[in-house]
């Protein structure tokens, strides 16, 4: 069995940034395992621009953004294996993988960084009634067909869900000559970025139908049309009489992303029901010592820049763990999300986290205007910040400084909440 200091599962943006950061921290025994043929993860098919504004202060396409990290991996000669699928991870950090070049392999890692990303919620999970015909794809699958295979999945398109990939694909399909009829969203607001709504729907005259959903799918063999109805904003139930039939040959779904934690569970990592990702502390260490998690497998991010930032931290902390320098000082303070907070990460802080600031991230549960976000310990407010608008599409990231953390020492719990 080969040994390695840091084994990184996944060579997408999170895995790459974690590898680069671990190397820059001094680690010289790193291995990235990537299941696809090339590094880059989902960025390979994200050929639109808008990546990297925070990290590189320039607008890059997905492949360009990934290449910046791949270049570093190559420059640092960090070993990686593509076409390698991890099959199992144990609590003792024994990783079993299968690769087309090396066959079945096992590694003993001193530390493992989980960076497997997420998957899209499929039609089946929504239980949309109707025929089970062809022509129904998740937006990401369609994106792969169009951008990587050069094949159009269809010509007349309806989009259900206004997640970012759906919005991006509305524009992409339009560019490629398809007619995009509308983007249908169950909620009263989009879960995508504002800039994507403007640049991908508004600019092309594609209507965004809020409080609507697809209630029926027509077409025995290939999709022939969908029926869209308005929903009651409270109950989310379709309102009878509001049905409209749209003739289309393609339905793209952008109805949520699910962190892919099946491997994490095999390793015994505790999963948060709020995020679908691992429960981590301020070092991004999971409930299993030496196993770290970052990027969309930890929680679904809005921007890749923040994935990279988080992964850099995971790389650094994993190396500290390898060196036996990852101090977990002081009592564990659970962080709970109060009103308006969906899945705060990290879920646990250590009281004496050694003077470095802690990033607390979450998505607002709804749209809140002129709202305040506060962090408090047993009713005492330790931090607050005002926001003109909070939306589920854009993540909130709070930097909690050493000062705040020292005031929180001794607290049994920290609560982060929205006051609107």
């Amino acid at each position, binding site marked *: 069995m080969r040994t390695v200091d840091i084994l990184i599962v996944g060579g997408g943006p999170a895995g790459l940034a974690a590898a680069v950061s671990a190397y820059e921290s001094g680690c010289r025994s790193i291995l990235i395992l990537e*299941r696809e043929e090339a590094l880059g993860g989902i960025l390979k098919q994200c050929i639109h621009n808008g990546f990297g504004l925070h990290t590189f202060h320039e607008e890059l396409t997905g492949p360009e953004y990934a290449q910046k990290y791949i270049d570093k991996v190559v420059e640092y000669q960090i070993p990686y294996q593509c*076409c390698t*699928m991890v*099959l199992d991870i144990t609590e003792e950090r024994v990783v*079993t993988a*299968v*690769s*087309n*070049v090396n*066959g*079945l392999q*096992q590694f003993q890692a001193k530390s493992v960084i989980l960076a497997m990303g997420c*998957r*899209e919620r*499929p*039609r*089946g*999970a929504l*239980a949309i*009634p*109707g*025929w*089970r*015909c*062809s*022509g129904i*794809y*998740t937006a*990401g*699958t369609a994106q*792969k*067909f*169009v951008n*990587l*295979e*050069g*094949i*159009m*999945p*269809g*010509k007349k398109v309806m989009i259900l869900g206004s997640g970012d990939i759906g919005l991006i694909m509305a524009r992409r399909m339009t560019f*490629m*000559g*398809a007619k995009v009829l509308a983007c249908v969203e169950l909620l009263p607001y989009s879960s995508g970025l504002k800039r994507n709504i403007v640049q991908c729907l508004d600019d092309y005259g594609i209507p965004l139908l809020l409080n609507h959903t697809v*209630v029926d*799918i027509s077409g*025995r*063999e*290939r999709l022939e049309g969908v029926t869209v109805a308005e929903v009651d904003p409270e109950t989310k139930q*379709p309102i009878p009489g509001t049905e409209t039939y749209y003739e289309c*040959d*393609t339905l793209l779904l952008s109805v949520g992303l699910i962190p892919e934690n*099946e491997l994490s*569970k095999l390793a015994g990592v505790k999963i948060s029901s709020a995020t679908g990702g691992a429960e981590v502390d301020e070092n991004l260490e999971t409930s299993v010592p030496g196993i770290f998690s970052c990027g969309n497998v930890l929680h679904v991010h809005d921007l890749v820049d923040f994935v990279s930032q988080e992964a850099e931290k995971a790389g650094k902390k994993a190396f500290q763990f390898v060196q036996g320098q990852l101090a977990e000082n002081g009592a564990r303070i659970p962080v709970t999300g109060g009103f308006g907070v969906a899945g705060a990460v990290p879920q646990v802080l250590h009281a004496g986290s050694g003077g470095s600031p802690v990033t607390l991230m979450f998505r607002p549960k709804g749209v809140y205007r002129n709202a305040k976000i506060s962090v408090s310990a047993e009713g005492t407010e330790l931090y607050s910040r005002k926001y003109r608008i909070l939306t589920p599409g854009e993540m909130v990231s709070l930097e909690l400084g050493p000062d705040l953390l020292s005031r929180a020492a001794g607290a049994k719990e920290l609560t982060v909440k929205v006051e609107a």
Partner: protein
Amino acid sequence: MVMLDVLIIGGGVVGCTTARMLAGYQLKTALLEKASDICEGQSKANTAIVHGGYDAKPGTMKAKYNVMGNGMFQKMCSELDVPLKWNTSLVVAFSEDGIPKLEELKHQGERNGVPNLSVIGREELRKREPNISPAACAALLVETGGIVCPYELTVANAENAAENGVRFYRNAPVTGIQKGEDCWIVQSGAGTFSAKAVVNCAGLYSDEINNMVSEDKIRILPRRGEYYILDKKYADVFHASVFQLPTKMGKGILVTPTVDGTILIGPTAEDLDVRDDTRTTSEGLAKAIRFGSLTWEHIPMRDVITTFSGIRAHCDRDDFVLGEAPDAPMFFNAAGVESPGLTSSPAIGRYLAELIAEKLHAKGNPNYNPIRKGIPKFREMTNEERARAIASNPDYAKVVCRCETVTEAEIREAIRRPVGARTVDGIKRRTRAGMGRCQAGFCTPRTVEILSEELHISPLEVTKFGGNSKLLSGNLFEKGDGAE
């Protein structure tokens, strides 16, 4: 015209088991399937239960063939390398006044010849099924209840039949049957056939086929059932197949593990006017959950991976119609076969094959080999077996379907086997690629590519299940073939 001894119409589980049984004789046999693949009708969309046989009325064909078929399953599944699990069935009563009805069911089962039936109380039930709703107070325990993969079973029968000489024709709907001289002349989408004997295993359309040749008319009353499938993470929540005791509210909804580790909830029962309306409906799906919740109080809806519906070929005679038609010699029916049709299928197949062989004075086939090996499943191998599989076929190292850990080797083999996969759904049923929690989101592009390579067709010609169910509309880089 193709000259045959026996022509089977219908490539569902009954047609394919009959084909395999007929392969045991020196007969020239072929099977016609109207769809693009075998197992495209009710055989692919049912509860996947090997029923004990307590449910059917004593004296019916259903009762007889259910109990007989149940007894044949172990041997058949061993010979065909098909996963089968004797997980027992439970019929649960949710109020004390149901207990006498459980006793009645037990008595009925005993009259049908079902062994080892017992009524168990609350405590024993809870010990067996800790996650059952507190309202469950007693149950009929059916020791001979099991679960099986219905599509793998159908495919395995077809493969074994084909390996023993039966010819399969797909995309071959029957358009006419006439009486010839000592034979039947059958027109189909795959040409004209003459056969000394014709076997009607046409499922939902078995009335149409029968009524083409016989004045003894039958009528299929299509009945739809809708289902949910839940993620494998609930594999251990229920051990037995948990039925609900029928009440005046209906026959109840089943909650059962599947051999593949998912949980299946359903079916509803709704009579249809149109026989192939396999749509799911919001009412039906809601009903499945409403009644399913009686058994499993808090069904985790966020872990639903898919929903589907199947149509049962319920016959107006309320029983299977089996055997030679009274006014059409050498025309044999296996018509109106609905639940417990899957369980009954080997017994029906054996009965028809023996009957036909006798009438045609056919000798046994000395070369008949009843053994079929399944496609070796990477996900079920030990690491040592995996290493060996990869050494002999490097495609075993290429995982295509992440959720179900299906490799390229398995997908290619599914296409290359006799009666091999020609569609994305065909691959799904033979390998489980695309059947997992992402529902083919990640593997579809690669599966399409492999089908296109193996079948030497353009990716644009690849379909989900034949006909016009094409997946893709245009190639962006070929002139004149792009999007509008």
